[in-house]
C-alpha cells in the first residue's frame, strides 16, 4: 500500500516535470522559430521554396529533396522543401495553412476550389511573373490552355501538362472478350453494350457485367461518364452547355432528354441484372472489383495509355472501347494546377522553380520517380521500371507525376507505349474544344443554394444513376427538389457570369 502511494506520487512528480519541460520546449521552439526564418529570408541565395502537394510522405523524401536541391542551387540559387500532405487531409490542412499564413510558396490547385482561392486572395496573379521568370512555361503550355486558367483576365495557376481532354469509353476484360468472341469494333453506342452484357451474364454467373467506377460515389457515375463528350459541365454539372456550345445558353442537365434517355438505359441494365443490386451503396472501386475478378467492365474516360494504366492497376488485361471524340472543357485543364501562394516571400524564385519543372527533365524525373538506380532503373527500350525485388508498395519513393510540370519531358514507365507522350499531344490537339473553354464559375454568390442542391444530388444521384431507382417516378421528384433547393438561381447566376465572360473574351 505504501509502495503504491510512493509510486503514484513519483508518477505525478514526473508528470509535473514533463509538463514544465513541455512548456519550456514550447517557448524555446517559439524563440528559435521567430529568429530562424527571417535569417533565411534575408539571404536570397538560400531561399527555401516550400511546395505543398497531395501525396504520401515517402521514406526517402529527404534523399530525393537533397538531390533536387543540388540541381536547384546551381540553376536558381534556391532550395525546395517538399511538403506532401496525405490525400484525405489535403484540403483541410492546406486551408488551415493558408488561413494561418504559414510559410508556403507553391501549392497544387484543383478546379473545385480554384475560383474560391482566387476570390479569397490566396493566390498570386502570375502574368508578370510568367513573362519575367516563366518563359519555358509559356513555351510548353499551349496558350489556349493557359487562357483557360484565366479568372477576370488573369492567370493564377498553371496546369501540369497531361491529358487535357477526355472522351467516354469502356474498359472490358480481354480474356472474356476473346472467350466469347465479342467484336469490340462493332460496339459504337451504349445500346450496343446491352448484348455484350447479356452474353457475360448468361455465361459467367459469378461476374458482374458492369460496375461503377467509384462504387456508390455520386461523382463519375455511369451517366456522368456517358455524358463526357456531350455536355460542358461548367465546373459542377449544375447548369450545363449541351453540345459544348448551345450559343452559350446554360441549361439544366437533369431536364435534358439525353440525360433521361441514358437513365432509362441504365435502369434497363439494372433490371436485367447487369449491375449489382447494391451498386448505389457499395464502397469498392472498379479497380478493386476488377482486381478480385468480380467485374467484367467499367465505364471510364479515355486518354492515350488508359489500357496499360488500368491493366497495371487492376492486374487484369483490359481492352478499351471509345464511344465519342474527346472534348476539352475548362475543368480538363484546371483540375490539376500549380499556383503560388500569396504568403510566398519570394514569388520570383517560386516561379523560377515552376519554370524548371517544365524544362528540366532531370529535376522533374527526380520529383516524379525519385533517384535513378535507387528508386527506378532504366531497362533496354529506354522505359523505366522498379529495381529488382521492389514493388510500388515497397519502393522508398513514390509520387503522383501527373500533378507536376511538363509530363512530356519525363520518363515513361514500363507497360506504357514508349511513344505515349507524342500520342498524348496528338490526343490533346485533336480534341473538340468547348465554346466556354476558359470560363470558370465562381460559386460564392450562390453558395447556400449550391450546398442545398448538392445535398439533393447526393440524395438522388446515386440511386438514379446506378439504375436502382425508377427514373419514371423519381426523376420528376428529383427535378422538383432541385428547383426547390435553388437550382434555377444557380443557373441564372452561371448564365450571368458566362455572359460577362464571353463579352470580355471576344
Amino acid at each position: 500500500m505504501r509502495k503504491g502511494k510512493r509510486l503514484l506520487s513519483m508518477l505525478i512528480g514526473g508528470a509535473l516535470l514533463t509538463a514544465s519541460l513541455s512548456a519550456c520546449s514550447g517557448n524555446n521552439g517559439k524563440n528559435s522559430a521567430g529568429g530562424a526564418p527571417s535569417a533565411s529570408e534575408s539571404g536570397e541565395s538560400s531561399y527555401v521554396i516550400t511546395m505543398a502537394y497531395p501525396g504520401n510522405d515517402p521514406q526517402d523524401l529527404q534523399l530525393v529533396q537533397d538531390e533536387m536541391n543540388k540541381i536547384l542551387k546551381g540553376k536558381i540559387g534556391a532550395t525546395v522543401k517538399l511538403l506532401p500532405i496525405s490525400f484525405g487531409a489535403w484540403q483541410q490542412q492546406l486551408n488551415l495553412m493558408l488561413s494561418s499564413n504559414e510559410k508556403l510558396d507553391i501549392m497544387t490547385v484543383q478546379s473545385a476550389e480554384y475560383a474560391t482561392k482566387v476570390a479569397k486572395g490566396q493566390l498570386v496573379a502570375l502574368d508578370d511573373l510568367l513573362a519575367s521568370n516563366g518563359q519555358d512555361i509559356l513555351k510548353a503550355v499551349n496558350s489556349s490552355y493557359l487562357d483557360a486558367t484565366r479568372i477576370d483576365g488573369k492567370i493564377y495557376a498553371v496546369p501540369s501538362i497531361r491529358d487535357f481532354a477526355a472522351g467516354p469509353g469502356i474498359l472490358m476484360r480481354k480474356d472474356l472478350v476473346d472467350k466469347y468472341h465479342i467484336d469490340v469494333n462493332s460496339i459504337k453506342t451504349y445500346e450496343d453494350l446491352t448484348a455484350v452484357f447479356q452474353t457475360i451474364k448468361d455465361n459467367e454467373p459469378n461476374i458482374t457485367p458492369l460496375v461503377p467506377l467509384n462504387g456508390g460515389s455520386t461523382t463519375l457515375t455511369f451517366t456522368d461518364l456517358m455524358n463526357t463528350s456531350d455536355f460542358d459541365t461548367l465546373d459542377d454539372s449544375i447548369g450545363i452547355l449541351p453540345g459544348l456550345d448551345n450559343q452559350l445558353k446554360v441549361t439544366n442537365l437533369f431536364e435534358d432528354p439525353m440525360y433521361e434517355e441514358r437513365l432509362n438505359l441504365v435502369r434497363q441494365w439494372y433490371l436485367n441484372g447487369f449491375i449489382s443490386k447494391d451498386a448505389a451503396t457499395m464502397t469498392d472501386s472498379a479497380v478493386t472489383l476488377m482486381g478480385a475478378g468480380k467485374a467484367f467492365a467499367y465505364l471510364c474516360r479515355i486518354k492515350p495509355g488508359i489500357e496499360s494504366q488500368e491493366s497495371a492497376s487492376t492486374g487484369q488485361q483490359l481492352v478499351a472501347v471509345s464511344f465519342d471524340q474527346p472534348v476539352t472543357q475548362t475543368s480538363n485543364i484546371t483540375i490539376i494546377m500549380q499556383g503560388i501562394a500569396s504568403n510566398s516571400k519570394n514569388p520570383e524564385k517560386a516561379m523560377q522553380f515552376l519554370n524548371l519543372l517544365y524544362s528540366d527533365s532531370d529535376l522533374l524525373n527526380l520529383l516524379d520517380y525519385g533517384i535513378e538506380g535507387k528508386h527506378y532503373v532504366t531497362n533496354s527500350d529506354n522505359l523505366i521500371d522498379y529495381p529488382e525485388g521492389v514493388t510500388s508498395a515497397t519502393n522508398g519513393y513514390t509520387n503522383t507525376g501527373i500533378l507536376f510540370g511538363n509530363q512530356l519531358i519525363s520518363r515513361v514507365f514500363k507497360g506504357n507505349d514508349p511513344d505515349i507522350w507524342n500520342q498524348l499531344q496528338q490526343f490533346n490537339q485533336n480534341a473538340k474544344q468547348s465554346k466556354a473553354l476558359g470560363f470558370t464559375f465562381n460559386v460564392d454568390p450562390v453558395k447556400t443554394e449550391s450546398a442545398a442542391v448538392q445535398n439533393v444530388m447526393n440524395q438522388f444521384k446515386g440511386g438514379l444513376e446506378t439504375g436502382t431507382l425508377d427514373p419514371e417516378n423519381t426523376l420528376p421528384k428529383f427535378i422538383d427538389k432541385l428547383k426547390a433547393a435553388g437550382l434555377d438561381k444557380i443557373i441564372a447566376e452561371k448564365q450571368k457570369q458566362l455572359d460577362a465572360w464571353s463579352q470580355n473574351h471576344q
Partner: protein
Amino acid sequence: MNREHRIWQWITHIIMVLASIGCLFPFVLLIVSSFTSEHEIIREGYSFWPKSFSLEAYSYLGGKLNEITRAYGVTALITIIGTIVGVAITAMLAYPLSRQDMPYRNLVAFLIFFTLLFNGGLVPTYLIYTQAFEIKNTIWALVVPGLLTNGFNVMLVRSYFASSVPTPVIESASIDGAGEIRTFFSIVIPLSTPILATIGLFQLVLYWNDWFNGMIYITDSKLYSLQNMLNRILTDIQFLASGSLGSNVRTGPMPSETVRMAIAVIGVVPLLIAYPFFQRFFVKGLIVGAVKG
C-alpha cells in the same frame, strides 16, 4: 414471490446476454475478416465463417513492420504521457476548486465550465498551436491539445473530492503539521483512486483513439500514430474515389479491405489488455464506498 423473482432474473439475464452479443459480434466480425482472404471478401462479402483462412493482411503489415512499430511507439508514448500528465493536471486543478476556502473558486470554476460550452473553433485553435506554441509536426501536437480540453473531467474530480474526501480529514492533516502539498499527495490522492482511475481510463481511451490532432497538425509520416495511419488510409481512399483529381489518376496500391481490418485489430488489442487493469480500481472503489456507507 420466489418464482417471480426467478422469472425476473431470467428476463434480465437474457436481455443482458443479447446486449453483450450485440456488442461483441461486430468485433468478432472485425477479427474474422482480418483473417479472411481479400478476394473472398470482395466476392462473397463479410462472413463469420469464411471459407478460407488467410494471413495475407498480417503478412502485409509484417512487411511494413517499421512503420507499424513506429506508429505503435508514437501511440504508446502519447498515451502514457497524455494520461499521466492529464490526470495530474486535472487532479491538481480540481483539488483547490473543491476546497471551500479557496478565493475566487467560483470564478475559476466558471472559466472551466465555460470551455465546456464554447471553444475558439478550428482555425483560431490551429493558429494558436502552430504560431504561438509551434507544435506543428512535433510529438507535442498529439499530446498538448488533449491535455487542455478536459473541463468535464475537472468538474467530475472536483465533485468527488468535495463529496468523498471529508473536510475534517484535511483539517486533521493540517493540525498534524502537513502542508498543502503533503496533504494533497498523502491524504487526498490515496483516498481518490477510483475517480483518478476513471478519468485515467477516459484519458487513455482519448489518447489511444485520437486521430484528429494528427490529421490537423501532422504532415510528417514519422509522427503518425496508429489511429492516424488508419484514418489516413480511409480518407485517402475516399478522396481518390471522389474523383477530385480527375477520373484517371492512379496513385499506386491502396491497402486492401483486410489490411484495414488488421490494422484496426492490432490497434484495439492493447486497450483490451489495459481495461481489466483499470477495472480493479473501480471494484475496489465500490467496496470502499460500501464499507464506509
